[in-house]
Structures are given as C-alpha cells and as structure tokens.
C-alpha cells in the first residue's frame, strides 16, 4: 500500500514554522500586514538566516510602504549580491507564501523578479517560478481535504492537517488513533498548532472543536401490528414459532436482492453450487426434524 499524496516531508516543517514565527515577532508594528510586506520580509529573514549578513534586517522593523521596499530590494541587489545568489540557489527557502494569499504573493514575486532582473542568478530562476508556486501550494495542503490547511496542526510525524479534518478522523475511530498518512500514533495532545503571521487570532485550533453535526435520529419502521391475518386480497394466514430458524438465514441470504445467475453446467462452480444446494437442503431438513422432535 502506497500513499502518493504530495506531503511535506518531516524535516521541512519545523523550518517553516520557525521562519513564520520569527517574522511574526519581528514585524509586530508593521501596519495591517499586507501580503506584499509579508512576502518581502519573509524573504529578508530567510536570506539573513542563510547568509547571516544583517544589512537587510535593519529595515524589518520600520513600517514601510511598497515603494520604499522596492528600493530596499534594489539596495540589496547592489550591496549584497550574494543574497540573491543564495535566493536562486535555494529556491525552497525563498518563497514561503501565506495560505490564501497565493495571488498576491505571485504579484510580489513578479515585482521582485523585475527589480532584480539585472542580476543573472535571479533571472535564471524566474523561468520555473510558476511551477514552484504550484509545488509550494500543494506543500501546505491538508492531507485529508486536499485544500490549503485551515486551523493547521502538524503531527509529531510531520504531517499537516486542518484541525477540523483531523478531529473528525479521530472521532471516526476513537479506539484506533493513527496518523492518516503514516499510521503513527496520533492524538489531540500529540499535534502542534501552526500559527502563521497573518492569523489575527492566535488561539489554539485544538480548542475549537468543529461545530458538531446535529444529532440524527431516524423514525422507526412503521409497525403495523400483527399482519398475520389479512382478508383484504385473498386469504393468507401465517403462524410463527419463536425462533424461526430461517430468520437466521435472512441476515446472510438477502432474499430481497437478486441472486447471482447460476453457473454454467460443467464448470467447477456449478458442481460447487450443487453441493452447496444439497448441503443447505439437508440442513433445512435437519432443522425441521429438530423442530418436530425437540
């Protein structure tokens, strides 16, 4: 059995959360946090983490407008070209986009691409950005609903889920709580909530249980009392003995449904069927005999 769903591999996830949390703390005073700033600052942080040069990080805490950010990228270009090289060399670390802001971040990358177009390294990486975009989007898909994870939680084994999805799965099999992807042990206390920067209310998704579906009750089958005697259309009469032996067979024999066609004469299946038929016939006789003499 193989699970071929594109899943983020375990070691990558901690880095993601790390980066997002650092941006979240370093950009507290950034006004309303639009996607542009978000993506830009993320890039800065990841770049500084990679190169450990702190020229760009000083701009992080100022609430900047788009235009000034543009110039910042330009200065980055001219002063520290090695950052851009690192960008192109490690594309996976440059493009962490927020869930739901894929469109915006796309624009951002086009902008960055145009401003840094003169450097050869970035220009070369621009060609397959769309594909990267796709891969990245699927990286943050919930493994259950296949949508971008909402109220995301990550298991100890590194698999990403929406909390409502995972919760429903755990409810489905309360006595066998296994990770849907790798079948490792999983539970409410064994998953970690993920907080992105733009999530306004940083409450633990595990605390809000998805709205429970309303209780379902089906009306009982209409009981029409004793139906044994009916004189309306033709006369029939039936008598029952407490434990009617064939009531037992109805559970497995399904009289209401069409039977499979009998096998062709001469095949092994035909012989089998004949044997079975005899067996059941004897069984029936045995039951009747037992009823009569017991």
């Amino acid at each position, binding site marked *: 059995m193989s699970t071929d769903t594109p899943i983020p591999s375990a070691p990558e996830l901690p880095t993601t959360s790390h980066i997002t949390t650092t941006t979240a703390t370093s950009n507290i005073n950034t006004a309303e946090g639009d996607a542009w700033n978000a993506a830009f600052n993320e890039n800065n942080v990841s770049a500084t983490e990679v190169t450990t040069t702190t020229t760009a990080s000083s701009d992080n805490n100022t609430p900047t407008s788009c235009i000034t950010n543009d110039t910042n990228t330009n200065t980055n270009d001219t002063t520290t070209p090695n950052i851009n090289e690192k960008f192109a060399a490690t594309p996976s670390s440059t493009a962490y986009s927020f869930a739901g802001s894929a469109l915006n971040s796309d624009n951002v990358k086009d902008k960055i691409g145009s401003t840094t177009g003169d450097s050869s390294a970035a220009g070369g990486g621009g060609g397959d950005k769309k594909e990267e975009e796709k891969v990245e989007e699927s990286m943050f898909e919930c493994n259950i609903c296949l949508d971008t994870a909402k109220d995301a939680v990550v298991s100890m084994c590194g698999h990403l889920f929406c909390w409502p999805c995972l919760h429903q799965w755990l409810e489905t099999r309360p006595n066998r709580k296994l990770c849907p992807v790798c079948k490792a042990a999983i539970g409410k206390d064994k998953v970690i909530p993920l907080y992105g920067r733009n999530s306004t209310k940083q409450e633990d998704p595990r605390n809000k249980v998805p709205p429970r579906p*309303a209780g379902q009750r089906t009306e009982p089958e209409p009981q029409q009392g004793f139906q044994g005697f009916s004189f309306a259309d033709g006369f029939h009469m039936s008598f029952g003995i407490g434990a009617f032996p064939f009531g037992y067979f109805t559970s497995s024999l399904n009289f209401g449904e069409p039977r499979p066609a009998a096998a062709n004469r001469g095949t092994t299946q035909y012989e089998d*069927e004949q044997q079975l038929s005899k067996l059941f*016939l004897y069984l029936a006789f045995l039951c009747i005999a037992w009823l009569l003499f017991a």
Partner: protein
Amino acid sequence: MSKIVKLFKNNKKDKPPKAEIITEQKEPEPIPTTKCGKPLVLDNTRWEKRLQKELMSLIKEPPPGVSVDEDSVTRNLSQWKINITGFEGTLYEGENFQLLFKFNHKYPFDSPEVTFIGNNIPVHPHVYSNGHICLSILTEDWSPALSVQSVCLSIASMLSSCREKKRPPDNTLYVNTCNKNPKKTKWWYHDDSV
C-alpha cells in the same frame, strides 16, 4: 441451495414485505439534514470538493494504466467508473477491467465501495467472481489520506503480483451468500503475499 432460495422468494412475493426482512441491510442513509430539513451544506460541499480535486488530478495526471470514465462521473459525482489495464509482463497483460467506486457523504473518512464490474472480472485469488475485492485498505485499513488514485494503484499492484490465476477458495459460497455491498462483509485479511 438455489432451490431453497427460489422457494422462499416465491413465498415472499405475494405477501407484503415484512419488516424483519428489510431492516437487516439498509442502503446508506441519505445525507443528514438539520431539523428544518436543510441539508448540512458544510459537510456536503467538503466531500464533493475533495472528490472534484481528486478527479481533476486523476484526469490531468493519470497513473499508468488508469483512466476515468468521465461520462459516468459527470452524471453522478458519487459513482465513478475507472478503467484499468493489466500491466505488461504480468498475468493480466493487455486485459481491461472496470472498477466502480461508490462514495458516500462520509468520504474521505469512510472508505469508498470498490468493486470490479463489467464482463471481465479478473481471475485473482483476492477477487471474487461477483467483483468484490478482498483488500484491507478498502475497509479497516482505510485512511483519509488515501485517494482514488492510491486505491487504483493498490489494486493494480495486487493484480501485478499475482502468480497464478485462480479464484478465491471460498468463491462459490461467498458469491451466493454475500451482501451486494462488499463493505458489509467482515473480511479476514490473512494473505499478504499477493
């Protein structure tokens, strides 16, 4: 045995069906509704959305030997017909089979109902002649991270690893006594070799 069955069927025909016969196997209950009778839209769209996504990816990038019957899907999203072809170099090389996937509103938390349909049902130690498949991921080992694609792949690999074309030993008994829905069968998974 068929005699007895026919005998009983004839008896039951002229009588109104009794409750004791019907209650045993019921079709999956309809989509749950709220008190005011509206369907639970939230739940409803979620499983449909996931099926749509799976369908798109299956049409766009079908795994080798697997193709979706798009007509059947457009008619009813909860019943898919999927054609699979036996791989080269296996006992089923060049043979075409058709699988029927039935999804209920609990999908993906509940496994789909998967059977072989059509004239050509593979002769395989884990496939009964009525199309039922003995495969653990279709019942107890199901996980919501599995998909139509992975189920198709599992079935294809199950066929490919077959060494001898034969029916399961209890084929006749099972085919004559089983429920139409293979998920109602209590499967016993004991043979991991094929």
